[in-house]
């Protein structure tokens, strides 16, 4: 017997049956569809269901989505201007600021995925990056800007790599599941952050000991802003760092021996080991690089526009978790992650600070983002469902033709 579920395959012709069941068939279909259909349909389906929730609670979904679109500054494309006084231009700059972070946290998840691991600890690695960038950015006063920025970024990236590397090391040496260890490392990072920035903590603001907030990084460590005004949280050059990271991700994975080994281990560890690849070394290495992306995200955020971080900001931040949705929607590729980050960056800013709407309040829209995010992750995890919907469309077509004739 093949792997096909007999109940599904029995009434259908073999060709159709294969596409709704076996893995090989589903991959073949994905290739036929160009690889873009499934992510796009996933997003469309998630937005449709999200719209249904909005409609069911008495709001007009079309108006709500239009306002979110404008809130994210995406209407900028209809009248492009670089004048930041224009609302659309300002909103777009803020969306791109979020996109920058999400590209990096998305790459963190994607890189581990390509090695067959699920790095759910992007949030913790991001926090570790934030903390170290803040420490280096504040404590190392009187440095020239360029070395200061480079030192802070390097230290934070290394810290992120180390934090994820723990999970990689535990997986390689004792076989501890990376999902469990990264979840634990997340919460350790969160509590350590609360302690460091909290009342009486070592990194708490020196000026006012009553508020649990960190010091501001020195001016020499702040990234230059190229679109907008620094005081109004303009778009900093970290955006280009993120774009460079996308290119680096592609080159490392597809053009280097390291990337080849990482992908080989991701495809099939046993086969990779048989082919002479050191699987354990690659697990640690891939996890380290994955954490480096997340740590870099923390550094870019801290030096780019946050400058300081408070205890109350910790639970509000979930860019590390959003990175999971970004990477999954982007099918763990460089281009896909970039596009996924833009979508979620737009959702993140367009549903909260950027939103001015009489249809839907930011509190509702912000939670709508979580619903859409959850649905996208749910559907991406189940290709079979999306493929089934895609197939039934094909199946309906001959019937429609027959009816028309």
């Amino acid at each position, binding site marked *: *017997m093949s*792997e096909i*579920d*007999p109940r599904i395959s029995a009434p259908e012709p073999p060709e159709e049956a294969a596409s709704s069941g076996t893995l090989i068939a589903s991959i073949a279909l994905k290739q036929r569809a160009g690889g873009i259909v499934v992510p796009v349909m996933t997003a469309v389906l998630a937005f449709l269901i999200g719209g249904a*929730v909005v409609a069911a*609670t008495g709001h007009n979904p079309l108006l709500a989505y239009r306002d979110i679109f404008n809130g994210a500054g995406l209407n900028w494309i209809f009248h492009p201007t670089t004048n930041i006084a224009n609302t659309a231009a300002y909103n777009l700059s803020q969306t791109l600021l979020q996109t920058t972070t999400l590209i990096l946290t998305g790459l963190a998840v994607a890189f581990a995925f390509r090695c067959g691991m*699920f790095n*759910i600890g992007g949030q913790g690695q991001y926090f570790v990056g934030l903390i170290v960038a803040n420490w280096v950015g504040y404590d190392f006063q009187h440095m020239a800007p360029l070395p200061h920025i480079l030192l802070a970024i390097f230290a934070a990236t290394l810290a992120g790599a180390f934090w994820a590397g723990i999970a990689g090391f*535990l997986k390689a040496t*004792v*076989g*501890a*599941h990376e*999902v*469990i*260890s990264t*979840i*634990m*490392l997340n*919460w*350790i990072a*969160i*509590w*350590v952050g*609360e*302690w460091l920035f*909290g*009342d*009486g*903590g070592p990194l708490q603001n020196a000026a006012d000991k009553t508020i649990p907030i960190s010091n501001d990084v020195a001016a020499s460590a702040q990234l230059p802003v190229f679109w907008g005004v620094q005081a109004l949280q303009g778009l900093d050059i970290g955006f280009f760092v993120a774009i460079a990271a996308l290119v680096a991700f592609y080159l490392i994975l597809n053009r280097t021996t390291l990337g080849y080994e990482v992908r080989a281990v991701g495809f099939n560890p046993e086969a990779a080991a048989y082919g002479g690849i050191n699987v354990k070394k690659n697990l640690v290495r891939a996890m380290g690089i994955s954490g480096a992306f997340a740590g870099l995200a923390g550094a870019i955020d801290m030096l780019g526009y946050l400058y300081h971080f408070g205890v109350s900001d910790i*639970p509000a931040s979930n860019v590390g*978790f959003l990175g*999971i*949705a970004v990477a*999954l929607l982007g099918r763990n590729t460089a281009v896909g992650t970039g596009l996924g980050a833009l979508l979620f960056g737009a959702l993140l800013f367009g549903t909260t600070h950027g939103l001015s709407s009489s249809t839907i*309040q930011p*509190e*509702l829209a*912000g*939670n*709508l*983002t*979580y*619903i*859409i*995010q*959850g*649905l*996208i*992750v*749910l559907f*991406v*995890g*189940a290709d*079979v*469902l999306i493929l089934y919907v895609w197939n039934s469309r094909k199946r309906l077509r001959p019937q429609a033709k027959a009816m028309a004739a």
Partner: protein
Amino acid sequence: MSEWTQRLENPVSARLRDPAVSGYAGIVLGVFAGFLAIPPIEARTNTWPVLVGVVAVVLGIWTVTRGRRRLGWGAVAAGIIGAALGILATHSGTGNLEAVFNASLVAQTFAAATPLVFGALAGMFSERSGVVNIGLEGMMLMGAFWGVYGADKGGTWVVGLAVGMLSGGLLALVYAWFAIHLRADQIVGGTAVNFLALGITGYFFFQIYHGNYVPQGVSTIPNVHIPGLSSAGFLGPAIGNLNLLIWVGFATVIVSYIVIFKTPIGLRIRACGEHPRAADTVGINVFLVRYGCVVLSGLLAAAGGVYLSDGFGGGTFNDNMTEGRGFIALAAMIFGNWRPFGAFGAAVLFGFSSAVALRLQVYSASASTLFNVLPYVLTLIAVAGVIGRTVPPAADGKPYAKQ
């Protein structure tokens, strides 16, 4: 007859040399080393905690050399931690110590542990049947909001508990369909469940209550007054006035143990988690068992959530109310090695550490953080296999395809 001869051939001295005895003795002594410095004993010098801690470590090492590695390292860790805590405690004032360690700490420990107990048992049922459930956090959050909603609109906490548990069960059913029928990656699916629950509860909380708090006077889950105990010195404040769901939680642990290990249903559940193909061969409906366990998991996790909002919280809700308790519950289940009593013990330990952390906040932020981090560090050590390897069910997380 043979049992008697065995006992005669195995005198007390020989049984004392059994490494298991020395291991457990080491753990007890380690815990005792920490307790020496806190009320009611309150040793004021370092000597006693250190001395007892060292004895615990020695016993632990001896146990390790006799082959019981897990138990031995446990005793070593207990000795070191106990001695360290003892030294820390002798350096603080007795007044502060009495304010932190008293009978009501026991009540607070159980209060903090109850959501974890329900969550850990929920995770255990799901994973014993072979479905990883990292969506516990989301299912708990659903229970927290819809529980208080049901209590508010339905007028009584009974309705609240029912509605809350159903909401968790419903979310679990959706997850089960994706994880079992569509064979989606279970980690990805669980992550999605957490996002979905965060969005759904936040959205409807604002939609229904317009960003305000849940109105005052919602029917809450009552406490159980034990009449005879209220006058008894220690037990009165400790367990004389606990919430009903805390007792239900204790009972659920015992029932879960019996169901999992002593009934045919439990055997089927475990078979599906260890070797689904073999279970299928002998006529067990793997899909049905897994669906049942995942939905039960949602119901239980949501019960923990209802306790949080309508029991412990006194009929309130706020965005993301569970604050990671689902993940601590997951940790407790792993730390308890996928067993009901193990999970219960871990949940109480983690509840204790967060109750202590809450009380220490006033005196020392760093010590408070230490106790907050403890569950995660201990679980990390446990999965790393330093104190014995934790062993998940063999088919945990692997979707099953019928042949």
